[in-house]
């Protein structure tokens, strides 16, 4: 069955409206679930109506593709661990960029007689699609620790990037006058793919969520460019919608980390030179403690704040923590959780984990709310958190994390830090907090340590 382009375009308009409502919904906690559903419905409308497009003459390849892709998609979404979410988003985003690239390539090799606008759009889709594709895979590899998370580069890297970008633009310009050259096309594709790799390599692993949000914005722009290639309004509208909203989200995330986007993209390498000697910070100043001792401290406490970090996720200690909190509350202690906006490896990471353990929502306090209360806190339990408590961000202007707002745990009467060793967090920096007078280190796996404390409390 085939229907007129008019009806298809009206369906695309409906899909676009659903996407708009979906994105809007996703920005508010109350409406987020419905927003996601609406966006999904929009996608269904757009796809179903496309199947009635007059250019589609056979369905075998389509069905095969949807089956393969669908199965992989479902498996990925179901199997992924919550901790691996950033990687997964990076991966999915890369696939999106790859798809836009492939669409533009298919359109190129179909060999119609595109006008100048069509060629430029094809070039843009290829360039941005390929950058998104390879860039996202580098981000994935960094997060999955397939490659080192540290910023990587080589002398002349910026020059190399400039050459690749310029080369791509020249290739597109060449294609405008000679639309049929496969060699130039593949040359462009390879240059763009390299560019994607080189752009993401020098960015530190800790900044990957921002990079992914940015690449997400790119993949929207790539889809939009593909829309110009095919004259398809759904792709144009939706792609630019995502492109713009992704860029704004990127900026909002940067703000939450107190960084500028330029600083995220190009800044780290410049500051990477300085290394701080760990021994100098820690030597002779570390006080180790035991679960029993911590339990005794907690028995006399009136207010306890738990500061979760990435280590909580690694140790899967969320349920154990809740039990500790329950025990404390049964003893009449006031317990709250201090949630730093970038604790863990993705925004909202700690909220997801603690929600899983059914910690009540109103006990999770954000940074600005909890920071003034540390002075009235008897014990702050830092659980696998490190960078988000590092006082260097507040005090040491030379530090790479200087200016990032942190949780002022050191203001509490006593600080108990639970981690396995003195090794550094994501930013690779020593943490002077561990050497403070009021800090006690409880070395061990996060979950085990918390279970031990709870047991000691119950006995005592």
């Amino acid at each position: 069955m085939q229907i007129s382009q008019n009806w298809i375009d009206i369906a695309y308009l409906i899909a676009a409206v659903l996407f708009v409502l979906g994105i809007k919904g996703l920005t508010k906690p109350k409406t987020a679930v419905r927003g996601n559903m609406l966006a999904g419905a929009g996608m269904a409308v757009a796809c179903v109506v496309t199947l009635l497009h007059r250019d589609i003459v056979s369905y075998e390849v389509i069905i095969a593709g949807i089956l393969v892709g669908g199965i992989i998609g479902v498996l990925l979404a179901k199997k992924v661990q919550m901790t691996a979410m950033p990687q997964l988003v990076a991966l999915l985003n890369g696939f999106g960029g790859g798809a836009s690239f492939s669409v533009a390539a298919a359109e190129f090799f179909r060999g119609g007689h595109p006008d100048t606008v069509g060629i430029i759009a094809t070039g843009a889709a290829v360039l941005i699609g390929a950058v998104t594709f390879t860039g996202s895979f580098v981000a994935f590899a960094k997060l999955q620790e397939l490659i080192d998370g540290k910023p990587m580069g080589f002398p002349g890297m910026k020059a190399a990037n400039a050459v690749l970008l310029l080369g791509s633009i020249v290739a597109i310009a060449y294609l405008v006058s000679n639309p049929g050259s496969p060699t130039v096309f593949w040359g462009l594709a390879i240059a763009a793919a390299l560019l994607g790799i080189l752009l993401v390599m020098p960015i530190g692993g800790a900044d990957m969520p921002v990079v992914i949000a940015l690449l997400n914005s790119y993949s929207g722009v790539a889809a939009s460019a593909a829309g110009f290639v095919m004259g398809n309004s759904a792709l144009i509208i939706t792609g630019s919608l995502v492109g713009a909203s992704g860029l704004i989200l990127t900026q909002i995330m940067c703000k939450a980390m107190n960084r500028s986007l330029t600083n995220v993209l190009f800044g780290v390498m410049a500051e990477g030179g300085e290394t701080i000697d760990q021994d100098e910070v820690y030597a002779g100043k570390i006080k180790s403690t035991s679960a029993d001792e911590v339990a005794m401290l907690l028995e006399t406490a009136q207010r306890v704040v738990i500061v979760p970090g990435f280590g909580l996720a690694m140790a899967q200690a969320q349920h154990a923590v809740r039990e500790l909190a329950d025990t404390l509350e049964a003893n009449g202690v006031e317990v709250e959780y201090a949630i730093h906006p970038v604790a863990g490896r993705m925004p909202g990471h700690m909220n997801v984990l603690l929600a899983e353990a059914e910690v009540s929502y109103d006990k999770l306090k954000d940074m600005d709310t909890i920071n003034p209360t540390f002075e009235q806190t008897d014990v702050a339990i830092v659980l696998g958190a490190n960078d988000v408590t590092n006082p260097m961000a507040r005090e040491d202007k030379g530090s790479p994390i200087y200016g990032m707002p942190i949780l002022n745990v050191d203001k509490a009467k006593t600080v108990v830090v639970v981690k396995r060793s003195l090794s550094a967090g994501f930013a690779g920096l020593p943490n002077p907090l561990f050497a403070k007078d009021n800090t006690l280190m409880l070395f061990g796996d996060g979950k085990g340590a918390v279970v031990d404390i709870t047991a000691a409390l119950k006995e005592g």
Partner: protein
Amino acid sequence: MDFVAELTLFVLAIFLGVELITKVPPTLHTPLMSGSNAISGITLVGALIAAGSDAGLLVKVLGFIAVVLATINVIGGFMVTNRMLAMFKRK
């Protein structure tokens, strides 16, 4: 649709996209990211047309790849967003 009309859609949609996102609490950054990532899988529409057209093997292969990648992006994206959001729901 002529080019200027397309351009007009493009520009309006960009403005709309900018206005839609204003203040998002950090908790929702990841779901919003994966959700809009799924939406950018709209390129699936183009992939379907490429894969279903009758234009030679290379185009079919490219179309197939495009459909597979875009479908993973769309299905995976929406499902994983939903999974994440389900965790936030208050019991």
